């Protein structure tokens, strides 16, 4: 416990690797037009990093409050829920009505609904059935299907012209993102990260299990609710910026547990955020700049993340 046993070497190595991928991302194929490149690629880089950190942090938090290492917000259907909320907004208020909210107002409103819905759905699920892991996962998968089907249903009910206002693809794209929300999104993410950092020790205690945490004097429910709120906000921001990210969180946090095994959230928060940034920035550089593949990085991450998930499950079953 405490920060004195942080794996400084490994974290610095990860930070160096990230710096390298950022430099490569900014420079490869830039043809020397620096003013343009800095502004254009810089904004993209900012968005990618913001999303990476939001995803890694929300996944880590979720695994702590759900007390296992295979659930993630997106497996549980959080981002599908956010997409559904936006679609429903278009359906009920119509595209024009939505525009009158202003994009900030709309984002705030969506996030608020997302908060309420997460408390209702996932809060009940974690509190009532949290000890039955498999049932939780299946419920999450089914809820995800339900949200996606409802979204697709609502989409068909909406006038195609109004549908253009939704602007959320089924796959996250790190190339075209919502620039309007970028700066406010980054601010919200930073605020969340600061808050999470202040409760990092309380999270350490929660991860020891309900009885032990109560014994150590922690109000487990309070911390779980706080974390759930942060998760809902982070998922809202990242989904609003680039779309659903599926298996990225799982992949990143699993790697973090492997590279920097630690009971401390201080270490895990840092390492998973670094790894997440490396995967997205580095992956984007390789896929787009070096191999010029047309497949979105998210598809590749889904494939690899799915494999990791399967291996984790099989490993657990063997025990």
């Amino acid at each position, binding site marked *: *416990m405490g920060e004195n046993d942080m794996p400084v070497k490994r974290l610095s190595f990860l930070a160096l690797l990230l710096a390298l991928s950022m430099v490569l991302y900014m420079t490869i194929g830039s043809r020397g037009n620096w003013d343009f490149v800095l502004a254009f690629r810089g904004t993209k880089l900012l968005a990618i990093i913001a999303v990476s950190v939001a995803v890694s942090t929300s996944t880590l938090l979720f695994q702590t409050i759900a007390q296992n290492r295979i659930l993630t917000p997106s497996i549980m259907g959080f981002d599908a829920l956010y997409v559904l909320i936006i679609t429903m907004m278009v359906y009920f208020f119509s595209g024009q009505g939505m525009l009158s909210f202003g994009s900030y107002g709309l984002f705030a409103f969506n996030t608020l609904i997302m908060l309420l819905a997460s408390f209702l759905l996932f809060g009940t699920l974690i509190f009532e059935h949290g000890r039955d892991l498999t049932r939780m996962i299946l419920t999450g998968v089914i809820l995800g299907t339900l949200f996606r089907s409802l979204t697709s249903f609502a989409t068909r009910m909406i006038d195609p012209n109004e549908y253009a206002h939704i602007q959320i693809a089924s796959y996250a794209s790190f190339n075209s993102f919502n620039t309007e929300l970028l700066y406010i999104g980054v601010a919200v993410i930073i605020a969340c990260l600061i808050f999470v950092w202040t409760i990092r020790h309380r999270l350490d205690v929660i991860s020891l*299990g309900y009885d032990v945490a*109560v014994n150590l004097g922690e*109000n487990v429910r309070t911390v779980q609710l706080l974390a759930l709120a942060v998760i809902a906000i982070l998922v809202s921001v990242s989904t609003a910026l680039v779309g659903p990210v599926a298996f990225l969180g799982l992949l990143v946090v699993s790697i973090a547990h492997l590279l920097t095994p630690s009971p401390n959230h201080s270490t895990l928060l840092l390492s998973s955020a670094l790894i997440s940034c490396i995967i997205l920035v580095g992956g984007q550089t390789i896929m787009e700049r070096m191999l010029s593949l047309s497949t979105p990085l998210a598809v590749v991450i889904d494939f690899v993340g799915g494999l990791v998930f399967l291996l984790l499950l099989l490993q657990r079953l063997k025990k």
Partner: protein
Amino acid sequence: MISVRNLTHQLGQQTILDDLSLTIPKGKVTALVGANGAGKSTLLSLITRLMKLQDGQILIDNMNVGETPNDALARKLSILPQSIQLEPRLTVRELVSFGRYPHAKGRMQKQDWNKVDEALTVLDLNELADRQLDTLSGGQRQRAYVAMTYAQDTEYMLLDEPLNNMDIAASRSLMRVLRELCEHHGRTIVIVLHDINYASGYADNVVALADGKIDQEGTPLDVVDSAFLHRIYGTDAKVHILDDRPFVQV
């Protein structure tokens, strides 16, 4: 002193505890015994706020459980839960250091680490200190958790069936440690026990529960005899007295 007044607890239609009142003295080892479903674990969970109080009052010295903040209670009493539900990937020393959380809140000082070292020494865990929990045997792991509650440095330590899944050597060693904590470190120990012989062998007081009520309490010699076994467990067995302690011939 833990005083329990008029405690009633229901689960659905079922009454688990029925207007139960009890005083547990300070500085002693008190064993809670009784048949399965008598309400021992529920009683312990209520005292340790793992379950929500429905009706009645529990005072620990002058602290009212249910009104006292969680972290203040965590400096007063500690719990060793019945089953450790998940295996955190921690070393023994890391686990024990979490016992200081109610005091240090994550900012460990020199005296906190001293307490951790003391706990490791008292529970004879120095050699295992840097091993991962999941590489230990059941008994060793249980001892590591006891060390954590020791480091928590509370007057009261409550343990819910700690001998489950432990062999005779590990069980005896743990019971001896608990006696030692009571006699030389002034801790008050409350322990739920399945095996009546461990209760009569190591406890100062035995409290017997039946159907959510206190059936009998007193020293092992006062409580444990053939009639008692028949009444509480519905089994007929001989009881022998050895060194002023009664033992059931199983």
